[in-house]
C-alpha cells in the first residue's frame, strides 16, 4: 500500500508537450511555432551579444562570489528594473514610493504579487476577491492565482474572434460590472496570446473605469521592448496608470527581452501611495518570499543590473532588443504578403496589426490539427503562433500550409 497510490497522472502543460512532440518529429520540414522564445533567421536560439559580453565580465571578476542575495533580491537589479518599467524620470520613483522584489521570472513575480494580494489587499482574507484575467490569457495566469488561494477567477472579454481584434466594448462592460475592488490582470503590451493591445485612447478609457470602481491593476509585463522595439513606447500603459494615481503591481520578466529564459530573471515592481505604505508592503512580501524560495538566484540579476547600469551596455542592449523586434515585424509583414499573394480566404491584416511575439491567427482547432499532423507545423490549439518560429527559409512553406488548411479544412 503506497501513500501515493491515489495520485493521478497529471495532464502535461500543453505548450511544453507541443515542444516535446516537435522534438520527436523526424520530418525535415517541421516548424515549431509553439513556445514563446525568440529564434534567429536560422531558427536558432539567440544569446544576446550584450549578454555574452556581460557574462564574460562576471566570469572574469574573481571578486564576485556566490553569497546569498538579500531576500528581496539584488538592490541594483530591483531599482534599475523598476526604472525600465516606470521611466528614469518617474515622479513616483522620485517620491520614494516605488519598490520592487526580485523574483524567479515573470511567473515568480506574479506569484509573489498574488500571494501578497490574497493576504493583504482588501482586508486580510482575499480568497473570495474576484480576480479577472483576459479571455484568452496566458495559460498559467489562472493557476498562479488559484494556487495563491483565490477562489473566484473570472474572464474579462478581450478578444473579438469575429473581427480579430480587441473587444473594447465587452472589456469596458466587464470592468463596469465587476465588483468594486476586484483585481484585474492586465497585459502591459504584446498581449499573450492574441498580440492585440489596446490603443492609448482605449487604455485611458480602461483606466477611467478602473479608477472609478477602485479596481486593482496588476500588470504583467513580459515583453517590454520586444513589442514595438522601443522600451518607453511599450511601457506607456503602465506609466499612464501611475500618472493617474493608481497604486499598482507590475510583474516584469526579462526572459524574452534579455533572452535570459533559463536564469529566471523577474521583478515585481510595487507602486504605492507613499513610502510608509511601500515599506510595510515590502516587509510582508519579504515574509512570503522567505517561505517560497528564501532569496532569489544571483546570476541573471547581476547580468541585468550590470547591463542596465552601464551606459554603453544599456545602449547595446536596446539595440539587441530592436534587432529581435525588427525581425518579428519583418516576418509579420512577409507572412501577410504571402497569404495575400496566395489569395488565402479571409483577411490577414491582423497579422501586422498585432504586436509582439505572438499572433492569434484565427485558425480553428481542426485547421490547427491539420497543420500539426499533416504539415508538421506545430502551433497551439488556440491558433496562436510564435512569429519567432518563422524564418525566411520556412515562411513560404508555412504560408502555403496555412492556405491549404484554410481552403481544405472547415
Amino acid at each position, binding site marked *: 500500500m503506497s501513500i501515493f497510490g491515489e495520485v493521478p497522472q*497529471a495532464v502535461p502543460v500543453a505548450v511544453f508537450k507541443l515542444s516535446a512532440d516537435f522534438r520527436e518529429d523526424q520530418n525535415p520540414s517541421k516548424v515549431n511555432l509553439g513556445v514563446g522564445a525568440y529564434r534567429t533567421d536560422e531558427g536558432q536560439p539567440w*544569446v544576446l551579444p550584450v549578454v555574452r559580453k556581460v557574462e564574460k565580465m562576471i566570469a572574469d571578476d574573481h571578486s564576485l562570489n556566490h553569497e*546569498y542575495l538579500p531576500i528581496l533580491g539584488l538592490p541594483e537589479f530591483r531599482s534599475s528594473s523598476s526604472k525600465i518599467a516606470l521611466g528614469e524620470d518617474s515622479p513616483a520613483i522620485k517620491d520614494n514610493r516605488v519598490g520592487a522584489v526580485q523574483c524567479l521570472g515573470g511567473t515568480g513575480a506574479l506569484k509573489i504579487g498574488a500571494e501578497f494580494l490574497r493576504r493583504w489587499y482588501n482586508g486580510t482574507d482575499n480568497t473570495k476577491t474576484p480576480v479577472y484575467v483576459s479571455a484568452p490569457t496566458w495559460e498559467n495566469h489562472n493557476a498562479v492565482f488559484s494556487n495563491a488561494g483565490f477562489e473566484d477567477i473570472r474572464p474579462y472579454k478581450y478578444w473579438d474572434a469575429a473581427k480579430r481584434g480587441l473587444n473594447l466594448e465587452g472589456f469596458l462592460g466587464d470592468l463596469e460590472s465587476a465588483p468594486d475592488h476586484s483585481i484585474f490582470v492586465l497585459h502591459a503590451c504584446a498581449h499573450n496570446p492574441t498580440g492585440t493591445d489596446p490603443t492609448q485612447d482605449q487604455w485611458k478609457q480602461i483606466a477611467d473605469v478602473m479608477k472609478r470602481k477602485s479596481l486593482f491593476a496588476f500588470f504583467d509585463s513580459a515583453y517590454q521592448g520586444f513589442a514595438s522595439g522601443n522600451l518607453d513606447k511599450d511601457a506607456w500603459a503602465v506609466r499612464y496608470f501611475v500618472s493617474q494615481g493608481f497604486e499598482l503591481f507590475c510583474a516584469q520578466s526579462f526572459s524574452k527581452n534579455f533572452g535570459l529564459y533559463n536564469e529566471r530573471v523577474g521583478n515585481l515592481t510595487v507602486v504605492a*501611495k507613499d513610502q510608509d505604505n511601500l515599506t510595510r508592503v515590502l516587509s510582508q512580501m519579504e515574509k512570503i518570499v522567505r517561505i517560497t524560495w528564501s*532569496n532569489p538566484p544571483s546570476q541573471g540579476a547581476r547580468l541585468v543590473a550590470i547591463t542596465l547600469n552601464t551606459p554603453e551596455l544599456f545602449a547595446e542592449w536596446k539595440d539587441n532588443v530592436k534587432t529581435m523586434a525588427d525581425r518579428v515585424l519583418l516576418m509579420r509583414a512577409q507572412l501577410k504578403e504571402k497569404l495575400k499573394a496566395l489569395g488565402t480566404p479571409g483577411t490577414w491584416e491582423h497579422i501586422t496589426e498585432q504586436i509582439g511575439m505572438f499572433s492569434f491567427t484565427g485558425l480553428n482547432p481542426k485547421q490547427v490539427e491539420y497543420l500539426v499532423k499533416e504539415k508538421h507545423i506545430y502551433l497551439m490549439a488556440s491558433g496562436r503562433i510564435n512569429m519567432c518560429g518563422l524564418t525566411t527559409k520556412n515562411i513560404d512553406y508555412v504560408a502555403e500550409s496555412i492556405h491549404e488548411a484554410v481552403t481544405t479544412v472547415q
Partner: protein
Amino acid sequence: MALLKSTKILINAGAQAPVLAVLQLRASSWWTEVQMGPPDPILGVTEAFKRDTNPKKMNLGVGAYRNDQGKPFVLSCVRKAEAQIAAKKLDKEYLPIGGLAEFSKACAQLALGLDNEVLKSGRSITVQTISGTGSLRIGANFMSRFHNASRDVYLPKPSWGNHTPIFRDAGMQLKAYSYYDPKTCGFDFKGALDDISKIPEKSVILLHACAHNPTGVDPRPEQWKEMAALIKKRNLLVFFDMAYQGFASGDIDRDAWAVRHFIEQGHNVLLSQSFAKNMGLYGERVGGFTVVCKDAEEAKRVESQLKILIRPIYSNPPMNGARIASTILNTPELYKEWLVEVKDMADRIIKMREMLVSNLKKEGSTQNWQHVIDQIGMFCFTGLKPEQVERLINEFSIYMTKDGRISVAGVTSANVEYLAHAIHAVTK
C-alpha cells in the same frame, strides 16, 4: 454647499492637527491595514553587526561558510566548472519544469549512492528546486495536496526557524518531538523515542539527515537504527532535510548514511537537498526534491503532479547553479576535487571547535564544553543563555542569535582566542 463647507472644515482641521491630514492621505491607500512584518531574527543580527564599529567584532549569526581569513569562499572546483561551462557557449533556453536532467540524476545519486536499488529500479523522482527552501516548499505543497491521511508534520525540538512557516503556509499543522537536551547540550534520545512512539500513524516526521540546524546534535548510527525501526512501526511518512551532506563529517557517504539506512529499511522517504553550503552555491539556489515511490509507474505519476505544483510558482528553475553542480558531480576530476574541498571546509570547522574548547580551558573556564566538540556541522548550540548572549553582543561585539547558536564558520584562528575570552567572561 454643504460639501464645500465640510471640505473647508477638513482643511482647517488639517492645519491645526496635521495628524488628521495624514490620516486622510493614508486612508486613500490600499495598504493602510498592512502591518509591518517582524524583522527576520537572523538578518537582524547581521544588520546590527554591520553597524558596529568595533574592530574586533565577530558575526557568528551567518549561516554561510567563511575561510580562515573570515572571507566567503568560492570553491576551486566551482571556478573550474564555471570556466568549462563558459567555454561551451550554451544557450539560455528554458529548462524543463523539473529542471536540468543531468543535475537531478546526479543529485539523487549523491544522496542515495550510485548503486542504490531505488535508482536502479527507477522508483524515485528527483526534481531540481530553488535550493533547500524551494525543495521543502514543493514537498510541503505536495503533501498538502496528496497526503490526505494526515495534516500533521512533526519537527524536532528545536528545528530550523523557517521549517514552521513553510509547512504552515502550505496548509500543514506543526507538532514537535523532543530532540535537544539542554541539560547535556546533546541528543535527548529517550525523549525522542518516547515522543515518536506516540505520534499518530501516517503523520509526517521531519528528520535532519546530518548536522542538525540549529543544535549541531546528530543521532549516532545505533540511535538512527532504533529510530528507523520505531518510525516504521508507527507507520510515519519520513521527510529528510539534508542541507549539509559532506559538510558535516567531511564524508558524503557518512553524512548520507541515515537517509540510505531508512530507505534500506523500507521507508519510502521524501528528501530535500541543498547545495548552498557543500558547494558554496548559496545565491545560485541549487537544490533537489526527491520522492521515493513504490515503483516506476508511481514515480511517473508523482513527477507529473510535482510539475503541476511547480509551474504556477516559478515555471521552471534557474540554470546557472544547477549547471555548475551538474558539471562537478558528473566530471570525475572535478568531483574528486570537490570531495577534497568539502572535507577541507568540514575540517576547518572541526578544528575551530577544538580550538575554541582548548582556548576556553586556557582561559580557565571550568564549564563543560565537550558539546562544542561533539556537535557537528556549521552550527553550535553553545548553551549560552539570552542574558549571556546579550552581554557578548553589547560588551564584546560578538553577534549570534538569542538562542545561543553560533555559526562556527564565523570563527577563525585569528579570532578564536577573543571568542573564548569573551565566552569565559560571561560564563565564569
